[in-house]
């Protein structure tokens, strides 16, 4: 629906559970004429993203969607899309990777693609998925960096809940048609893929052009500033649609909280319930829910955690041999600010293992009982 309202021009996707419903629905829109887009059928996710890259390169607004192994299969092209600075928006229904095989939810798939140069947004509910797709195009087309809109597979993708669908006219006012910043086949045709050398080199006109590293540096510089654009567009969205996203992370009862539960995606909902339960027992707790993971909102996170004595970080992923990714990144952000709260890292919900508010409450109470730093990640609720 978000892709339809965004008036995407080219869609290429390959079905994979739990994403399948997205291309199925879009095909129906295209076939019925409700959406004037080209739906290109492909034999794999690698080709799906390649089609998107090609179409985006020549100036189309493009959309794709995938999950888990499909995303992994796109890996090479993910780097290409970001390196070529293409404003592609992808819906990602988060799912665990095999082996062993699973079709259920965790975030190992998108976290594994952390370093491809894509922006990553994580949604708490289905309204946020729709809204993030609409904002995604506006943001990506400003910064020329692709975006993954990530949401928990099954937990969100297969749960029906009320979603406010904006009027097409409102969306058109918010998101005008995409005007590419360069034209490959224009009056002055351009070549977009010369091999880059390590040092700057003059082009045919004698103008010095950036080196490979120069391109890389520009991508990094853009992502460093992209957080501001994400928040600004989120604020503009709020003015038109009444739902503001002018933040890179969500806070719940963080004021005067000495213990913060840190989550990402739909788990932020359960964490807010856990905090209500913990507060009833007299524990001053709050939730910080990461909305944006790339660019990483280090500064906002430092601010949100500045008063915390304990931080309990829940990760639906793990960087094997170390710990959960949001834990590592949070620690790095805190180090920069000289903040030293006690930190526990709980690995939760891998392969769709349900995580209830009472589980988060229990883990927090366990950690508070330990009164100190915990070495290494803890596995929540695993006996075998």
């Amino acid at each position, binding site marked *: 629906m978000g892709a339809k309202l965004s008036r995407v021009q080219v869609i290429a996707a390959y079905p994979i559970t739990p994403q399948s419903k997205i291309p199925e629905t879009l095909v129906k829109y295209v076939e019925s004429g409700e959406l004037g887009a080209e739906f290109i059928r492909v034999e794999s996710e690698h080709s799906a993203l390649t089609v998107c890259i090609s179409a985006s390169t020549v100036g189309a607004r493009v959309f794709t969607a995938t999950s888990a192994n499909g995303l992994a299969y796109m890996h090479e092209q993910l780097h290409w899309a970001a390196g070529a600075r293409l404003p592609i928006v992808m819906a990602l229904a988060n799912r665990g990777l095999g082996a062993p095989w699973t079709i259920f939810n965790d975030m190992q798939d998108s976290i594994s693609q952390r370093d491809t140069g894509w922006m990553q947004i994580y949604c708490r509910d289905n309204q946020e998925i729709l809204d993030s797709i609409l904002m995604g195009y506006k943001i990506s087309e400003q910064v020329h960096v692709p975006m993954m809109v990530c949401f928990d597979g099954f937990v*969100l993708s*297969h*749960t*029906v809940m*009320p979603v406010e669908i904006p009027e097409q006219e409102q969306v058109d006012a918010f998101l005008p048609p995409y005007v590419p910043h360069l034209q490959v086949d224009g009056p002055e045709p351009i070549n977009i893929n010369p091999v880059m050398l390590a040092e700057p080199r003059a082009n045919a006109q004698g103008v010095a052009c950036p080196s490979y590293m120069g391109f890389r540096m520009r991508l990094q510089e853009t992502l460093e500033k992209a957080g501001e654009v994400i928040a600004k567009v989120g604020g503009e969205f709020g003015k038109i649609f009444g739902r503001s996203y002018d933040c890179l992370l969500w806070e719940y009862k963080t004021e005067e909280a000495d213990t913060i539960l840190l989550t990402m995606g739909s788990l932020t*909902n359960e964490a807010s*319930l856990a905090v209500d339960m913990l507060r009833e027992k007299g524990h001053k707790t709050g939730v910080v829910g990461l909305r944006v993971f790339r660019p990483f909102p280090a500064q906002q996170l430092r601010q949100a955690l500045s008063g915390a004595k304990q931080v309990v970080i829940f990760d639906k992923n793990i960087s094997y041999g170390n710990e959960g990714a949001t834990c590592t990144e949070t620690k790095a952000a805190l180090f920069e600010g000289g903040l030293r709260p006690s930190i526990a890292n709980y690995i939760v919900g891998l392969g769709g293992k349900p995580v209830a508010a009472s589980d988060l409450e229990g883990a927090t109470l366990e950690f508070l009982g330990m009164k100190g730093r915990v070495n290494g990640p803890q596995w929540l609720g695993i006996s075998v």
Partner: protein
Amino acid sequence: MVLNDKDQTIINVTWHGRGGQGAVTAAMILAEAAYIDGYRGVTAAPFFGVERRGAPITATTRFSRTPIRTLTPTAKAEVVVVLDERLMQVVDVLGGLKADGLLILNSSNPPEKFCADRDIAVATSDANSIAEEIGLVVAGTVLINTSLLGAFSKASGLVSMESLEKAIRKNFNPKAAQLNFRGAQLTYEATRTNRVWHLPVRQN
């Protein structure tokens, strides 16, 4: 019972059926009807996984006066609806029902025949015969999922028939909607209960 805007009470409904009976569809239509009825928090979900025609499946509906903040599977429900009474022998249906809950069965038997040893409320309605009689049959399969929504409305008193009608009409073409709602109406009228059930008031 009066539910106010600050009421965070969640009504959990678990549906038991067989793949192809439409339990997931019924769970979703009930969520839509509850939303039309004024509940601000509603969700519906299948038991996440893979399903096969004929195999036991479950689906859940949740609704509340305030937005719902949980997406985890329902452990114990206030109301359990069983589309095929024979599932009682294969699935631990009662294990997922609260001690003071309501059990709704598609059955030609009277409610007193079920769970007499428990304190639960039981409602039965012969949706099969009703659906067959009015021609709610597609490709040889008698469709009873929407009919049982009528039994839910009658036995629980939580969602009105007016809201159910609107939700059914949103999900089917006019002719099919008419038939499905007729099935729900007749099943509503044919619902028998062992006692009147009210949503238990719990201290948060």
